[in-house]
């Protein structure tokens, strides 16, 4: 094994992973800040603005506080499961980022291509869906091992909610795959160079947005945590760093969903209105940098929409939520899938 091959298979991915982890953790922390801040603006107040300029150091202060807090394990809890449950929650949320291409690959001289992705798996979407659905284990385990009733309720709700919304979500993603003809995320993004899929697949996009909100347990579908009913939901008994894990996992999921929606429906890093070739002719780095910026802007816009929804709507009830999942979203997603398949088969042949 030569040094080059070692670098290709171990070195570079490791470096990328470390960079990505850092960047993602940073983004997630600041997502919390952005959310609190924007939520404040929507509610006619200013949000956190005390720690540092504009409250920018707030996430760090929060993190420090959580690290320094006592880690309480309730007497009724099952200590082992209680301890590892947060890991189950946070790992899938972060692993999902591995397959997302954040920018167009950087083409340096002599045709060497550096993709901006940890690993562009050819079954990327499938990997993503299966990994993210593992997150529910963290929640169920937390609820079960806490030995307390509110978390139990929260986790049961969460399990059924995630199961029911995974299906419309997957179906809506399937129609994207049909359109693009590939499971690979970079291929899907490339297939959107003319038109983001959000326009032809408006139904699928709608279903995706709604089920994504449900998947990430946010208002109006934040039943597992339903603050007013279940105190804190599945993480009621957690404190300190373990609670922070859940918190981070939740927001990592939010960021992940935003990134995935950007890649699948909003054209990913494709720069609108400017042909790729002209930019490439200008400077290869420019393409990548602009692509990264465009990706970021799209993702942040999506996040803004998310927060906006949270600021506006009340919460559904448990049974209503499941009914919407099975009786509204699922048929729509199926219909959409058949439509797309039909169009693809007979019209776009």
């Amino acid at each position, binding site marked *: 094994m030569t040094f080059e091959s070692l670098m290709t298979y171990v070195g570079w991915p490791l470096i990328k992973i470390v960079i990505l982890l850092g960047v993602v953790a940073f983004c997630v922390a600041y997502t919390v800040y952005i959310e609190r801040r924007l939520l404040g603006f929507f*509610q006619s107040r200013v949000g956190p603005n005390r720690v540092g300029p504009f409250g920018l150091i707030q996430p760090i202060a929060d993190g420090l506080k959580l690290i320094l807090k006592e880690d309480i394990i309730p007497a009724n809890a099952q200590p082992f499961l209680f301890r590892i449950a947060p890991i189950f929650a946070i790992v899938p949320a972060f692993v999902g980022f591995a397959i997302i291409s954040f920018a167009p690959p950087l083409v340096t001289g002599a045709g060497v291509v550096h993709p901006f992705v940890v690993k562009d798996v050819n079954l990327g979407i499938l990997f993503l869906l299966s990994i993210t659905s593992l997150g529910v284990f963290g929640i169920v385990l937390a609820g079960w091992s806490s030995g307390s009733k509110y978390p139990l309720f929260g986790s049961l709700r969460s399990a059924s909610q995630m199961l029911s919304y995974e299906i419309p979500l997957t179906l809506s993603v399937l129609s994207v795959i049909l359109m693009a003809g590939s499971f690979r995320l970079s291929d899907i993004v490339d297939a959107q160079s003319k038109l983001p899929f959000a326009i032809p697949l408006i139904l699928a996009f709608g279903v995706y947005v709604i089920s994504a909100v449900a998947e990430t347990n946010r208002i*109006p579908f934040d039943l597992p945590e339903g603050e007013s*009913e279940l105190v804190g939901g599945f993480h009621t008994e957690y404190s300190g760093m373990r609670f922070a894990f859940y918190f981070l996992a939740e927001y990592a999921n939010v960021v992940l969903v935003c990134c995935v929606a950007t890649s699948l429906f909003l054209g990913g890093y494709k720069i609108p209105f400017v042909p790729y070739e002209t930019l490439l002719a200008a400077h290869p780095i420019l393409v990548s940098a602009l692509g990264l910026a465009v990706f970021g802007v799209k993702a942040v816009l999506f996040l803004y929409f998310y927060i906006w929804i949270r600021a506006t*709507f*009340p*919460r*559904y009830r448990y049974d209503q939520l499941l009914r919407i999942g099975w009786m509204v979203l699922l048929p729509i997603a199926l219909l959409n899938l058949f439509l797309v398949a039909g169009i693809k088969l007979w019209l776009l042949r």
Partner: protein
Amino acid sequence: MTTELREAAGTSPLRKALETTTMELNFGPQHPATHGVYRAVLQLDGERVVGIESIIGYLHRGIEKWVEYRTYTKATPIFDRLDYVGAILNCHGYVGTVEKLMKIEVPKRAQYIRVVLDELQRIANHLLWLGTHALDLGAMTVLFYGLREREVIMDLFEAMVGQRLLQNAYPIGGVRLDFPRGWERACRNFMAELPHRLDEYETLLSSNRMWLQRTKGIGVISGAEAVALGLSGPTLRGSGVYFDVRKCIPYGSYEDFDFEVPLGENGDVYDRYIVRVREMRQSLRILQQALDGMPEGPLMPEKLSKIIRPPAGEVYFSVEGAKGQLGYYLVSDGTDKPWKCHVRSPSFINLQGLEKMVVGGLVADVVANIGSLDIVLGEVDR
């Protein structure tokens, strides 16, 4: 476990294994949705509520007993602590009772000023209620909008009587001071702004399908049941029963004003919500009329002895509090201290309706129902 299954299982160990039991869930006293230290022990069959037991008394301060050791005047501020989000109304109830006992004629201007402050307090109470009720159902923005408007009322109170929450607004006999300069203008500005804000809340809630699904047909209580349980206030009117102390047993010049009593139709959470929202609009109407027709005159009756020493006897007087009929029962033995005091606190009695509302519903509806009752634990426990 269905009956057939149970029959099939007979007395076998399988039966024991399949047996399901109800789960007991402690709802409170420290719980985000109980609006204070209220505790409900729920019996749950899955997510369905099959029984509820209210446990109260965590905020008991013995106010009724306390009053027996204080003179009539000194007892005034303590009644603010009953329903601390509608303090002025409590105060009005108490001073009204003593005035009735002593047959004091409150000057007309003082009565009108009391009406103005009362209605402002009612709006403030309903705004806070709206916010917290919406927050219980997940719509957190309404809380902040409601608090924002309530803040203006609080500032008006502070300028008028000096305190924001527990104002000790009225002395026995009338009011202490007239409106400060510019107060009326500020109040009118607020009154001009509020209807638009109420429209916004209704856009956020009344027409929102999630809100409708969460509130329509939930916690239904019929008019007859509500009357039988002694409910009052918006909780009763939500069930379509026309009873408003301001209309039915007028006090403090309320007969001078032209306003409607909004009624609900089905007696569900939505009706109780919409009744309160409409009530705020009616309160604005009363305010408008009271400010426009404010008579001139003294603020305190001319001959009022410094020491309040009512004749022996008993008296019951009630006002339309923020939560319902707020009644005071006083027994005087001719000394300067009440011999016995009892408060008919609407929150306490409205809480009786909770069982009718929640049994058979889901856990999430318990929250909606508690919210729709608008209880304040200071008043429930006294």
